[in-house]
Every structure is written in C-alpha cells, then in structure tokens.
C-alpha cells in the first residue's frame, strides 16, 4: 500500500543555515500521526515543506504515491492535502459562513466560475452548513471571522481545513493557547472530523499527542530521531534523552 505521505531524504537550508537534515517520514493512509519535538526543531518547516509553502533544497515528497515536492500549495491542495496554521489564518473581513464556503468551492468543482450565483448552488450550501454544524459555529454564521473569540477562530481554522474534503489533513498546533476545557473540546472535534482520513498533527500538549496519535515521530534539529507507536516512543531512550525527559512518566 502506498503511504499517504512519504518524505525521502529531504533537506532544507535557508542561506547557510540547514533547518532540515535528511528528513525521512512515512505516514500510512488513515493513520493519525503526531510530530513532536522541542521548539525550533523544524516542525512547522516540515509542515511548510509537505504542504508546498516552501520548496525543499533537495529530496522528494510524495502524496499518495505522486511526487508533490516542487508543486505550488494550491496544486498540492487539489491533490487532496489540506493544512491549518499555527497562527490563525482566516479571511478576517468575511463572515464565518463565507470563510467555510470559500473552502468548499474548489472541491465542489466551481473553480473560477463567474457565471453562477454562489448563493444558489445547492451542494455548496449544504456542505457549508454541514461543516458549520460540525465545528459548532452555526449560530455565529454571519459574524465576520475577525470578530470571533480566539477559540472560535481556531475552530473555524479547522473547519476551513477540512471543508474541501481532503484525504490528508495537517493541523499545526490546533490547541495552542487554549484553556483545558477548550482543548478537550478541540480534540474531540479533531477526532470526529478526521475519521477515515489521514491526520498529521504538530502539538506541544503531550496529553493531546498521546491521546490522539496512532504513531508519533520525534523531530530534533531538523532530523527525525524516532518514529513509532506511543508506547515505543515512551520507551525509547534516545527520545527520553533528547526531548521528553521525565515529563511523560
């Protein structure tokens, strides 16, 4: 079976500084995969590489078997990969409803159509309503996204990410800055919405990571030092030394 995401020997340098060294990562279809690592390890850079936000200096990235390194983000998105951002990245002046609807349009095949009335497309309407329902923002549908509370914006961020129906979902620290109760809510939401899809998640909250992930990869200084099930990672001495310390006990 081809992996959903296959990263082979990827390197990334910014000038003389090498951020990612010999990165190898394989995420199976349907797997919930968490990437953890200390600050500055290159987790967000890894996300940016896979989603096409930045191009690798060398190496190869495959999405469902197809080479995607070198493609633009929208080309990768059309091939079935969708990501969220660590810093909330929504369409601030548009309403919640419009935010989600925009994310639905390409996937429903409407592309750059300038001859269709967007308000009367039944499948767009239905899908947008479903997503809003799922992220519990139906009651806020006419509020500009910029006026939402922080937790609501994070939920909208996830809604936009999943709206296109991508088979691979990448979430960059979805619970960052949330309270304990909000985190629990968000995790339940993520678990439900990524059912049957492949999930790659970067997260600092270890309870979220170990509760959610089927497999975990540990990234240190731009290199993956270990990859395995939560139990394997917990017991791995290299990981303990480099990152986890006594925290997981």
């Amino acid at each position: 079976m081809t992996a959903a995401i296959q990263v082979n020997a990827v390197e990334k340098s910014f000038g003389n500084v090498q951020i990612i060294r010999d990165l190898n990562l394989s995420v199976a279809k349907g797997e919930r995969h968490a990437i953890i690592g200390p600050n500055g390890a290159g987790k967000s850079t890894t996300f940016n590489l896979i989603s096409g936000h930045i191009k690798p200096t060398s190496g190869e990235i495959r999405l469902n078997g197809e080479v995607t390194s070198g493609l633009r983000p929208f080309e990768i998105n059309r091939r079935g990969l969708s990501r969220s951002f660590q810093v909330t990245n929504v369409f601030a002046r548009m309403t919640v409803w419009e935010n989600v609807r925009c994310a639905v349009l390409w996937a429903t095949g409407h592309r750059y159509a300038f001859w269709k009335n967007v308000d009367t497309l039944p499948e767009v309407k239905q899908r947008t309503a479903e997503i809003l329902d799922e992220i519990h923002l139906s009651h806020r549908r006419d509020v500009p996204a910029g006026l939402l509370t922080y937790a609501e914006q994070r939920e909208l961020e996830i809604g936009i990410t999943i709206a296109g129906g991508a088979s691979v979902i990448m979430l960059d620290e979805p619970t960052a800055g949330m309270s304990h109760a909000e985190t629990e809510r968000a995790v339940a939401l993520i678990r439900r919405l990524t059912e049957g899809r492949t999930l790659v998640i970067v997260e600092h909250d270890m309870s979220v990571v170990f509760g959610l992930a089927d497999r975990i990869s540990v990234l240190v200084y731009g290199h993956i030092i270990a990859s395995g099930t939560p139990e394997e990672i917990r017991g791995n001495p290299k990981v303990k030394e480099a990152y986890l310390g006594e925290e997981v006990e």
Partner: protein
Amino acid sequence: MTNAPTPSIAAAKQEPGSALSFYGVWLLAAVALVVLPMVFSSGGSLTSFSLIGIAIIFALSYNILLGQTGLLSFGHAVQYGLGGFLAVHVMNAVASHNWPIPLPAIPLVGGIGGAAFAIVVGWVMTKRAGTVFAMISLGIGELVASSSLILRSVFGGESGITTDRTSLMPLFGWTFGPQIQVYYLIAFWVMVSAIAMYALTRTPLGRICNAVRDNPERVEFIGYDPHVVRYFAYMFAGFFAGVAGGLTAINFEIANSAYLGATQSGLVLFSAFIGGTAYFFGPILGAILVTYLQLGLTSVTSVWQLYFGIIFIGIVMFAPGGIAGILMKHRPLIRAGTLRTVIPSYLVAAIPTLAFALGIILTIETVARFSGGDPIKLLGIPFVATAPTTWASAAVLFVGGFLVARITWRRVAEAWDRAATVARDRGYLA
C-alpha cells in the same frame, strides 16, 4: 465566553421580504434614472447627470480591484482611455463603411478594448499584489499616457481624435444628437453595468476575490491560485472601465490623451475611496459626490483641487470606510431603534463643525486671493482678502470652531457608545 448564549444575528437579519427590498432597490434606481431628467431638465443638469453616470461605472469598475480583490491601482484610467480610443476609432469606421451597428452597442466595443489590454498586460501585473502591483500599475499608466502623445496616428497627438455620434445608424428614430438621448444611453449602460458588476460579486469568482483580498496566502491552501483570481479581477475591471471610456467618447465625441493620464486615475481612486470600498454601493456615492464637487467647485473657486485633497485626507483619517462606511455603521442602531438617542448630539456637533469648516474655507480663500482675484463671498457675506477683519474672523472660526467641535464630538462618541451597547444587547451588533 464561547458558551455564552449569543443572540442570533442571523435571525435578526432574515426579515421577511428581504428579496423584495433587494429588487426594490434596483427598481428604484432604474426609475430614478428615468425620472431624473424630467425633474431637472436644464441642459446643465443633463450634462452633469451624464458625467455622473459615466463616473459611477468607472468607480464601480475600480472597486472590483480595490474593494473586492485588494488591488491598489494607480493606472486604472489606462483601460478607460483605451476603451474610449477604440470606441472612437470603431465609430468612425462604422460611419465610413455604413455598417449596421447602432450607437448603443459602442460602449461594448470600449469594454472589449479595456479588457483586451488587461488580458495582454494583466498576467504579468497581477503576479504580485500590494506595492508591486501598485508600482507596476503606475508605470504602465505613465507608459501608455506618454506614448499616446507619440503615436499620433492612433491617439491623434495632443488634439486627440474626434468623431460624430450622429453619423451612426439611428435606432428607433433616435439619432443621439440631443444630450437627452445620450443621457438615456448612458443611464441604460449604468444600469446594465451596475447589475453585472453586482452579480459578479455573487459568483464563486467574486467570493474568492474577497478571500484573496483578505488573505492571499490562505487562498492557496483551499485550492485557488491567487494570481489567476487577480488576473480575472483585473480583466473584469478593465472591461467595465472600457465601457465607461466608450461612453465618455460618445458623450464628448472625442478621445484624447487626458483620458489615459494620472489625473483620471487619481480621480477614480478618490471616488471609490471617498464613497467607501467595503460596500458595493460605496463607489456610486463617491462618484456622485466627486463629480458633483468637480463640476460645482470649479466655478466657485480656483483652488478646488485643494478642497479635494482636504476631503480625501479627512476621510482617510477619520472615516476610512468612506461615506458608505459611515452610513452602514448606523444600520445596527436603526434596527435596534437607538439611533434617535444619538441624533441630538449630532445636531449639537454640527454647529461648531460647520464653523470650523467655514474657518478653513475662509483661510484658504484669503490666502489664495490675497494678491488679486475675485472678492470672497461666503454664505452671502462678502469678505475682503486683504482686510485684517477677514483674517480675524477666519482665525476665530478656525480655532474656536475646532476647540468647540472637539468637545461636541466627544459627546457624540459617548452617546454612540451608549446606543451601541443597547444595540449589542438586543443582538443587532456583533
């Protein structure tokens, strides 16, 4: 906060008959366009209405770029002017070959001219938004404007190229010689263009234009290439600018290099911004006001451009949403029924604000006419520019008006806060 029961704004918005009121607005606009020349039938007002109509199309086309897609163009008059030139050339060709093309179809030719130019230069221009786009648009604007003086066979040099709108075949007995017939031709195109441009905002492309305006980076991650979106927007803006240019050519029976220049590009930016770019109808208000001021002020004062500048700076600083923004801010208060608590403070503030404005005007005119010129007449009172009494009154109005206005506007802000709080409690304000 998240779990607090929020009064549903959606429920407040969905009033019965909203579709009726939507079509009602368009119908009202159409009726107004038809009736206007019957109410104000003088030749002067017909000319003004014609120019305002053209300015409305032009400003709306500009807002496809600025308000809808977030592209700040300093060279929008290029498409407008080229549309005008193409229209003039086609009109002359139609007349000399006796082709069966009536005059009302000519603005379409202008639109095609504007769109064609946009298709050619647009792909490179829209690669980047922001400063890069603004600079390239400025460069292209200057390039075309200056080459229009060099390529005499196409642009006719400084004198331009003339045409005769009555030389085309008449339509239903209309020769389009009289200004009233030209007015109705323009009014027809205003209606068609405005509806088309509004409809464009309600399409998938139109919505994605807004998304590109708000956050081009994120658009790439929902499957869209922002470059293609900007390119489409640029083409549509070019088309409708060309329509406006074609109408100008019909109206004046001439196209010259002034149509293409930076002044024209600046005026349309003015109109869109003063009217308010965040709402579809904003540029319409701006076009009406700016054209009206332009026509009205030139006969009253020689430094009318100075007043434009002051109005523009005032809007940028105190009401970046433009006139439409100011109006729409009141909507939740009207809905919540709290507007009447604000109005008295407005009326109080109006008096010193007016005094302040008169102070500014008197100061400007005194300076402008100090070394000669017509005597100043303000509200029917004559002032002598060289008299110390005039200077004193200007200073008193200026300083006194400013100080008192500041206090009264603070009162307005307080009254506003109270009204907004009530509106928020009643669920009409997010």
